């Protein structure tokens, strides 16, 4: 592969600046994103049991609905029948408490069950906000800003990230054949970091390309659709699909499930969400949206594909997002979403994405390290005995932000796992940002050689605590605790190694500053 040397030089420079601008944001996005691959199981894990009677069999759902709606008529407007109740969704029937419940994030829900004597029992459940907070941290690249403000910033970072990928490939291509598998751990520290960076970057390139392009679209889709709305004839929309005229009553959930099984075999429905359209044109009608999964296909959502059904006949009205039943075009669009969310292929892919996410975070860390080392080299050549202000700030920020993010995520999970009830958003947010800011402050305030060992070992310790807490919960028989404990232990071990090394270097007085 022959590329003109001046072009390579241009893109090498573009790559280092783009990388340094986006690197730390991307570190947080990838680390939190890796954890959020298991958002649903973690949410389940952190939700305390409600004490609601065991869910009624699906066939008795109509009876449950009738009795519940008699007591809570407002629930008719928007309710969900849960096909496989769990801790997060403890009742066969549930509905959002108060207005909303249709936006992002977990809502306060009411769940209903039947007591042994046949009376309806309900419980109010506030969600644990910890895992959703980590997902938000991922989406907002670690910025404590409102969604509307953070999204465009995320979009800009994603654009910079895309440019960094393209320029990195161009800068790396000429050397590709020579150095791809050569991780020269012997020939000087910066060379080893460079080889690791190239190796990680090259082998996760498709993953990163998908992430960059999808993130740009996730950030700017509203604006782009707004432009489309101005450009094209929106009034010609012929897509309002209206369900058949209401007959007596909607089908029973069992009949809906059976009808769906006939039309989309292999699709496993998880929830049936009923909503009454508000009054107005086409209003006052009941709509039914089924969320479910199918490991054979990619899913549009992070855990679900969707189908719109006629609640009175069970006929599929829209299969645009129904895995396996989509048109080719929609399947292609869905593939992009599924590739971002890792919502295809089931658990193995999710574990793979966890590894790729942590690996991506490590890639950005190595990039920053390379940048700092290159600047130090040139500063020493110019005869400077100590780091310039820019190099010093960046090296401290790199240490503080990366360890701060890792400690913060571990602390959030520990706090949520130790508390007896659901943890409110403010508590989660305060503990994460408190830890994050403290870590950044520590990286600036500690003596140069002390920062790295202290923060790395604290990060390892926080993950060790998380592993212990998880094992403690595992003793009470919660099945994913073991997986969490092992993952946290591996992360702790991964941090312990460089932490220990920098500690011994500090003792010997040779440490990296």
């Amino acid at each position, binding site marked *: 592969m022959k590329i*003109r040397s*001046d*072009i390579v*030089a*241009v*893109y090498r*420079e*573009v790559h280092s600046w783009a990388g340094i601008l986006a690197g730390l944001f991307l570190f947080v996005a990838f680390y939190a994103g890796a954890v959020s691959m298991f958002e649903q199981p973690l949410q389940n894990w952190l939700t305390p049991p409600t004490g609601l009677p065991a869910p009624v069999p699906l066939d008795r759902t109509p009876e449950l609905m009738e009795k519940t709606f008699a007591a809570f008529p407002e629930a008719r407007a928007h309710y969900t029948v849960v096909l496989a109740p769990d801790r997060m969704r403890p009742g066969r029937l549930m509905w959002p408490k108060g207005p909303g419940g249709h936006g992002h994030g977990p809502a306060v829900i009411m769940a209903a069950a039947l007591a042994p004597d046949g009376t309806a029992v309900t419980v109010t459940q506030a969600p644990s906000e910890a895992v959703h907070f980590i997902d938000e941290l991922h989406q907002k690249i670690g910025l404590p800003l409102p969604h509307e403000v953070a999204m465009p910033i995320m979009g800009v970072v994603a*654009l910079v990230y*895309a*440019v960094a990928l*393209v*320029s990195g490939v161009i800068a790396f291509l000429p050397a590709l054949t020579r150095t791809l598998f050569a991780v020269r751990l012997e020939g000087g520290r910066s060379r080893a970091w460079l080889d690791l960076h190239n190796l990680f970057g090259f082998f996760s390139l498709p993953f990163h390309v998908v992430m*960059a*392009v999808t993130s*740009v*679209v996730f950030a*700017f*889709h509203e604006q*782009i*659709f707004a*432009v*489309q*709305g101005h*450009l*094209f*004839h*929106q009034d*010609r*929309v*012929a*897509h309002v699909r209206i369900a058949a005229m209401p007959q007596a009553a909607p089908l029973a959930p069992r009949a809906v499930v059976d009808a769906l099984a006939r039309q989309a075999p292999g699709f496993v429905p998880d929830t049936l969400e009923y909503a009454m359209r508000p009054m107005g044109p086409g209003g006052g009608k009941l709509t039914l949206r089924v969320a479910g999964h199918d490991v054979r296909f990619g899913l549009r959502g992070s855990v679900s594909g969707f189908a719109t059904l006629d609640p009175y006949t069970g006929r599929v009205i829209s299969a*645009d997002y129904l895995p396996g039943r989509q*048109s080719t*075009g*929609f399947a292609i*669009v869905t593939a*992009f979403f599924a590739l971002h969310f890792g919502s295809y292929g089931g658990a193995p892919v999710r574990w793979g994405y966890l590894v790729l996410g942590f690996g991506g975070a490590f890639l950005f860390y190595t990039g920053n390290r390379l940048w700092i080392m290159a600047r130090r080299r040139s500063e020493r050549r110019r005869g400077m005995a100590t780091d310039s202000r820019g190099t010093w700030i960046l090296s401290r920020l790199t240490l503080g932000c990366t360890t701060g993010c890792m400690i913060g995520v571990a602390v959030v999970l520990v706090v949520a796992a130790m508390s007896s009830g659901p943890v409110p958003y403010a508590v989660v947010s305060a503990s994460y940002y408190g830890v994050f800011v403290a870590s950044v402050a520590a990286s600036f305030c500690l003596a140069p050689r002390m920062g790295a060992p202290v923060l790395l070992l604290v990060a390892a310790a926080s993950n060790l605590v998380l592993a212990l807490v998880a094992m403690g919960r595992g003793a009470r028989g919660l099945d994913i605790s073991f997986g969490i404990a092992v993952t946290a232990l591996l992360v702790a071990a991964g941090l312990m190694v460089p932490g220990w090394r920098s500690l011994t270097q500090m003792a010997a007085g040779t440490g990296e500053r």
Partner: protein
Amino acid sequence: MTRARLDNRQWVAKLSAGIVPGCALALAVMAVVGALCHTTGSPMTLSAQFLMWLAGLVWVVVLSVCFLFRSGARAWAVLGAGSVALWLLFVILKIVAS
């Protein structure tokens, strides 16, 4: 003829060209393709979703290649002229269609 060596001295002008007329160009590509395939622009439809991805992708590509222009002025001229031409084409297509 040997071409001048490329460098990053005018990166501000080149990058801003990638951002401003680059964005206009990406949206113009979306507009022209959308007009040609008679999209309604409703986010529910497949065509609108494809066009949205197209715009994002074109912008990413433009931002990635804007450093290859010989000068910042040239970047602004090429990307600006390209987007003006495509927007004109879109207007013509709209007039023809109506």
